[in-house]
């Protein structure tokens, strides 16, 4: 799960990472008061949405008075922020973060993440921090420095200082960076992070460090060890259907097409999206059902597709294995159609364990479906049913 900037900063502060004073606000009035409470002469008002690229999209404003802070908040709150990472619909801004502005001499990029290819935690750092880090990195990959951590020995202070030196830092600033890295590493391990990205990590004229923006992702699979994060699950930010999907353990992402898709298995689901696209169709969503799904969870997923006015046809692709059975999927479809109607054409491609029982279940419940025998036919039938290419 993603933490908001203000949540991540609050957490990192407890590990000793210097962050500017700041207060979250849900109304313009609160933002105004927050600036006044914080004191100082300049503040940054930042939309708290789970997406990068806020600066360019108008989600970050520098203000010189508390009134202006309130006005900046008013311009953001309730609007949908569209950044390069949000998709066309953008994300509604429910909360802003008001923070004391600080003078910045240098912007560093510092991130800790799990390096998949070697299975270890690694630090990435660049002396060229800021909003354009991705482009900068693509243009000059040699400017990205990497430090891989051996889990047996942990982060070594010498290595951390060497990385700081690579960034062109020295003296107390380099020491401060090494200290910050230690804090980040500790926070990373103790909170089951899969990413802590500080960008920029500001160096002031005085040589002091401040984490100006923090993105932090916590491993969903480890949330059970951190019940405190469950509370931070920011339902307000995601759509009602995403909340519904999450509640039913469905892996769901809305898309722009007209074919509602439910697939058992993420890889197969991706393959179906590719096949639809190749044949000129467009999925309305990505929806992956876990092997341990119940028929009620499946029903919830199908009902979401049936409730989506964009969806002109539904494609269900399932391969029964040793755990998931096709008839569980079929029962879910039947429940959903009974409750929400069977008003869009339904294409089903069932194979493997429980295939025959699945067909019996749908037949017995009077659910009208068209069967496809293979993936290609399934995609084709769904596209035709949705109105053709």
């Amino acid at each position, binding site marked *: 799960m*993603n933490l908001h900037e203000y949540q991540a900063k609050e957490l990192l502060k407890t590990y000793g990472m210097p962050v500017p004073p700041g207060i979250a606000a849900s109304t313009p009035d609160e933002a105004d008061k927050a600036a006044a409470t914080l004191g100082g002469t300049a503040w940054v008002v930042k939309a708290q949405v*789970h*997406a*990068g690229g806020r600066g360019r999209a108008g989600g970050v404003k520098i203000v010189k008075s508390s009134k202006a802070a309130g006005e900046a908040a008013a311009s953001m709150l309730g609007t949908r922020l569209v950044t390069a*990472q*949000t*998709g066309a619909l953008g*994300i509604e801004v429910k909360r802003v973060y008001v923070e004391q502005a600080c003078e910045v001499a240098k912007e560093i990029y510092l991130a800790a*993440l*799990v390096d*998949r*290819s070697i*299975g*270890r*935690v690694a630090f*990435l750092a660049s002396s060229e921090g800021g909003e354009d880090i*991705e482009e900068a*990195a*693509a243009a000059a990959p040699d400017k990205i420095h990497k430090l891989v951590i*051996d*889990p047996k020995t942990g982060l070594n202070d010498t290595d951390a200082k060497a990385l700081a030196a690579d960034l062109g830092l020295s003296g107390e600033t380099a020491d401060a960076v090494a200290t910050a890295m230690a804090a980040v590493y500790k926070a990373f*391990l103790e909170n*089951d992070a*899969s*990413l802590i*990205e500080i960008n920029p990590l500001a160096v002031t004229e005085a040589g002091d460090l401040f984490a100006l923006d923090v*993105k*932090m*992702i916590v*491993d*969903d*699979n480890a949330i*059970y060890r951190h019940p405190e994060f469950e509370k931070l699950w920011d339902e307000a930010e995601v759509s009602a259907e995403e909340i519904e999907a999450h509640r039913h353990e469905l892996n769901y*992402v*809305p*898309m722009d097409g007209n074919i509602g898709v439910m697939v058992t*298995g*993420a*890889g*197969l689901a*991706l*393959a179906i*999206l*590719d*096949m639809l*696209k190749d044949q000129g169709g467009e999925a309305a969503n*990505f929806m992956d059902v*876990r*092997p*341990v799904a119940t028929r009620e969870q499946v029903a919830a997923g199908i009902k979401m597709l049936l409730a989506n006015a964009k969806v002109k046809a539904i494609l269900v692709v399932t*391969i029964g*294995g*040793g*755990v998931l059975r096709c008839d569980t999927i079929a029962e879910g479809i039947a429940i959903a159609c009974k409750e929400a109607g069977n008003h869009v054409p339904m294409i089903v491609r069932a*194979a*493997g*364990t429980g295939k025959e029982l699945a067909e019996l279940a749908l037949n017995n419940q009077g659910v009208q479906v068209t069967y496809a025998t*293979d*993936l290609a036919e399934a*995609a084709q039938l769904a596209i035709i049913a949705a109105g053709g290419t």
Partner: protein
Amino acid sequence: MGILIDGDTKVICQGLTGATATRLSERAIAYGTKMVGGVVPGKGGQSHLHLPIFNTVAEAAKETQPDASAIFVPPVTAAAAMIEAIEAEIPLVICVTERVPVLDMVRVKSALEGSSTRLIGPNSQGVITPDVCKIGVMPERPHTPGRVGIVSRSATLNYEAVDQTTTVHLGQSTSVGIGGDPVYGMSFIDCLELFFADDATEGVILIGEIGGTAEEEAAAFLKSASSTKPVVAYVAGINAPTDRRMGHAGTVDVFGEGNVTAKIEALDTAGAIIAPSAADMGTTMRKALGGR
């Protein structure tokens, strides 16, 4: 005779007494898999599915000399189970557990260093050599003994490849699910090496997906490999939803990771035959092996 497992492979199951483990172990036994014991802390000395239960992998290893361990435990104990199996020097460890925390896997990966254990998974559907041995959660149908090795990050796409190679009468030598998790045991490369050295395998289907660099690494390996066996590759996710990305995907991009087009290009350049779609893996391999 396929890779990793054969008719003599002696298998223990960590977590044998669980409901899913019981059902699938029973089916594995009926399939011919030589199960020799189970490990369930606190239940040592008992018996389940006519197999002796041990408290620890070390005891099970001492008493039954297993060649492989199948791990069917909840995520919370999966890493400990894997490490226990590695420390007991079980040659092959197959973890089917889903949702293992990634930092746990960092520890497991570290335990693997310098060990002789081969780890498959976590989040693997397992390994099967049709009609000979099956360890994991895959269905028996429609596997058929045959000529094609399959290695996949996705279980369901793997089943699809099995179905297709059976339909075109190629069958499978061995099918391996390496799991779709970020940090995992055996890689595409490890499996390709084994498949290339295996007499029964005439060609390999490699199934990747968006994310990570495993496909690129496999491509680099292929480029330098001397094997002439055809490798048919399919990588899912070229039209994957970009989702609302935060830092992670962005950071991934820093490394050029996760880009399916790049993966496909790398594999294509390395000599793999790219299946036009997930529906064409079997027919593509059929043609590559000289059939129509």
